[in-house]
């Protein structure tokens, strides 16, 4: 009797708060209901339907989707020469971009983390980060301007008797490298900054010159961060199709194939879309062995 009287005496808000406090399960389910409906039902649900639809086909006369299970689309992926070429080209571009990013990022990160005066370092990090906030499209557009006929690239190379690469696959690699470079500089910078100075001193005490210390001490400790950065540069390059449309000329990557199939043959587009997903998952698994993912 007394307990009900006490409960009745409290305001409803207070009672609800008490119930929530006593029942963590209820609290948890209230926290998770909305987000899970959104992510699990809306997002994962759509993804699941998309991947199932990769096993459907399209009526070649009416362009209607035929919902009969078949692996035709995946067979076409492996047997059609164009698809094979484009897939290999996309992976090649993604690897080239990753390698270029690593090569450019390392000296920049080494400078910002260890050579520059300590009071300048935070400012340099901001200087690396600022372009991340500039619009993706504007950055690709900048390269469209640079590589256009008679543009900056042509003007700079003219005295050497050369001309810029123009629009094409090279331009795509350059623009993508530019876009994702900060994603590579930052993890390397962090790793180099955290490198204990006494390890370097010890190496020097034991008679190692700079080159030897770099190979035997610095590089092994920084490699996981390079791998972590490469996850971004690789997967972002692999899925891109806008940059190719802007500076790629006539070249095509896997994203463009997906895009051009969406209207006419959605099941084929879905099957093509699984390719970057599978490649990225394989890449992530490979990178996991380097310990990169824990430093993401």
């Amino acid at each position: 009797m007394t307990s009900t009287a006490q409960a009745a005496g409290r305001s409803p808000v207070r009672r609800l708060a008490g119930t929530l406090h006593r029942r963590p399960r209820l609290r948890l389910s209230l926290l998770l209901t909305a987000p899970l409906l959104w992510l699990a039902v809306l997002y994962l649900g759509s993804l699941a339907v998309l991947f199932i639809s990769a096993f459907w086909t399209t009526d070649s006369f009416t362009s209607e989707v035929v919902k009969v299970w078949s692996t035709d689309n995946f067979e076409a992926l492996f047997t059609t020469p164009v698809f094979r070429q484009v897939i290999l080209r996309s992976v090649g571009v993604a690897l080239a971009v990753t390698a270029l990013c690593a090569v450019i990022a390392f000296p920049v990160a080494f400078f910002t983390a260890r050579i520059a005066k300590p009071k300048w370092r935070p400012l340099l990090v901001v200087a690396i980060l600022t372009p991340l906030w500039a619009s993706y499209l504007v950055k690709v557009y900048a390269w469209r301007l640079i590589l256009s006929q008679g543009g900056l690239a042509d003007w700079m190379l003219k005295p050497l008797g050369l001309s810029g690469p123009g629009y094409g696959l090279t331009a795509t690699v350059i623009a993508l490298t530019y876009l994702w470079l900060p994603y590579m500089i930052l993890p390397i910078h962090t790793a180099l900054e955290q490198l204990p100075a006494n390890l370097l001193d010890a190496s020097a005490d034991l008679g190692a010159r700079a080159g030897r210390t770099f190979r035997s001490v610095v590089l092994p400790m920084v490699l996981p961060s390079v791998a972590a950065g490469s996850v971004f540069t690789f997967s972002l390059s692999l899925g891109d199709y806008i940059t190719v449309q802007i500076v790629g000329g006539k070249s095509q990557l896997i994203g463009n194939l997906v895009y051009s199939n969406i209207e006419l043959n959605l099941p084929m587009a879905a099957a093509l879309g699984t390719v970057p997903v599978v490649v990225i998952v394989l890449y992530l698994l490979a990178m996991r062995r380097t310990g990169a993912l824990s430093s993401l």
Partner: protein
Amino acid sequence: MQLSRSARIALRVAAGLGFAVIYVPLALVLVNSFNPDRSASWPPPGLTFHWWSVAWENTGAREALWVSVKAGLGATAIALVLGTLIAFAVARHGFFGRDAISFVVVLPIALPGIVTGIALNSAFSTVLEPLGVGLGMFTVVVGHATFCIVVVFNNVVARLRRTSGSYEEAAMDLGADTFRAFVDITFPLIRSALLAGGLLAFALSFDEIVVTTFTAGPGVETLPIWIFNNMTRPQQAPVVNVVAAVLVLLSVIPIYVAQRLSADTATESRI
């Protein structure tokens, strides 16, 4: 590591070149917005403010900007609510499938945008269109919110992990109920993380083009879509130049605000 003098100089030069590579294209966009010529040939024949006033009058660009702002605000609001809810669940509760949830949150941004885009597109057109909701502003906001949740989640969960629950417990010992403790203790502790996460979410939404392409109906044109559609039109080139220059200038604001909010958000990567 004792570097030789020449190695130091070489590194300085390499880093200088690296920074040049980062900033020359952005500077070029700024300079080119004053180019009186419609082509992008270098060097520009002169400098003019003419295109800036032309761009100011351009209704297409202004409307697109407004659409982008509305979509960004909507997506940020949803992402703030959902991301914070998940962050509290993950940081303050132990339960089966917790790691899976952290994974699902990252997925929309980890998968290529085109995959997220067509998945949402086909879901919207098969489920929502029979209900009378066509592709439009609503679907753009839903699509953007899906990949914005992760940045709010990351910021809030990092903050919650650093602040222990003992403050809330102390408040409750002193008689505060769950809501009171949240308002007086927890919310002030996570406020700057929410601001930083919201800012990142808005920037992410503002910049997004791929998911927007697939979730916007024909009538909805965000600023990136407008730029993309007008980029290859010689007639519109000067206006695109100015809009691009404005976006480069505006990008300084979020980095400044993030820097002021907290040192840790500014040095973390964008996602």
